[in-house]
């Protein structure tokens, strides 16, 4: 599981792009594309290698005030773990 003080960033082979046709953000990587739901897009935008996982959760908790912090934390960690497994996100130590 991704550590709280890890600083996730997109792997070099991955690009984030706004898809004009659908209004959704997409991740592009070799021969594949992934449409991101709005929450996932907000997480990915913060994967710059500068913010820690804790800081990302805090920012999203502020943005999505209606959701519990625990729910946001679960969502962020699950998403980042899945992306890490797929080689799309890496963490600065």
């Amino acid at each position: 599981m991704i550590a709280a003080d890890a600083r996730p960033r997109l792997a070099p082979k991955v690009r984030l792009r706004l898809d004009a046709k659908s209004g959704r953000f997409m991740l592009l990587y070799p021969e594949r594309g992934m449409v991101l739901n709005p929450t996932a897009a907000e997480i990915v935008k913060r994967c710059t290698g500068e913010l820690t996982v804790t800081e990302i959760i805090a920012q999203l908790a502020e943005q999505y005030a209606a959701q519990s912090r625990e729910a946001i934390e679960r969502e962020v960690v699950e998403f980042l773990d899945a992306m890490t497994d797929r080689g799309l996100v890496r963490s600065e130590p």
Partner: protein
Amino acid sequence: MSAVAVPEYRPYTLVAELTYRCPLRCVYCSNPLDYARRRDEVDTAGWLRVLREAEELGVVQVNLTGGEPLVRDDLEALVAEAERLELYTNLITSGIPVTRDRLARLRDLGLDNVQISIQDVAAASSDRIAGRRSFDRKLQVARWIKEVGLPLTLNTVLHRENLDRVPEVIALAETLDADRLELANTQYLGWALLNRRALLPTREQLAQARAVAAEARQRLKGRMEVLFVTPDYYVDFPKSCMDGWGRRFLLVSPDGLVLPCHVAHTLPGLTWESVRDRPLGDIWRDSPGFNAFRGEAWMSEPCRSCDRRTTDFGGCRCQAYHLTGNAAATDPACSLAPAHALIEAARREAVDAAPVALEYRTRRAGART
């Protein structure tokens, strides 16, 4: 037939076949058998327009391929334009005609990924499949790709002659620090269909290789993506070829023809249009060739009544045609296909496996696929 213009049919990937010229002669090449006759390549201005029109249509990825795309000296201009349009670019190459400096320049212009092909894990066998000395050069270029900071995808086309060396292929990919490894069992069309008797593996060979790949995929999770593409001669249900005819992919050939895939031009009775004559979007939407196998009206049984028709679309039209003579037939790779016996016969031939000479990609001007 009226145009189909529903969101269901949106291209996400443009396959830009920039040329059929290539320094190699791979025995499984997917270029047309009569490639030598097609000399009239689309020029730089033409390709720049194709990129712009593709992006307008919804394309987000471009595969720069061929033949060998690096023989085009306008590749830099195309990569720069793709970058401007925010298209993700994959350069799919043999690696032969490139310098380290050129790779660095392409990187600076925005190239996103380089896929280099390796035919086997040692020079003798790799060069034999490629039809010329090339292995050492490919390794050098693979190292340069990583040195200049570009992502590296290693692609190895698998068949009977090299399947048993999948462990070594994986080890080589790790040595080269590849980000991605494609273990791609060959599709049996074009030159590979011609050479099928020599290339089709046995089920046991395949199962063994698949198990090795699965173990590596798990071990390398997060570090190197490992893809294993099973040949559809050994599945029960066919692949959804190209994710459906004229649905997710657009191919533009070196002479400007717009096609749903690189084999579609071999199907008789279909009309194809050129980017030189019409805008890309019009062709995608209205072209009779593109609309020939969209929807379900064209399907024969059992596809027409089959639950899987929305998942695999009845398999590959080109394979259906080249094996049965009918492009609308169920792909024989499907276990439910009336012509499935053709596939079973090919599998039995693979088990018998008397040594067969390979036929190399050459200038067979008179031949058609």
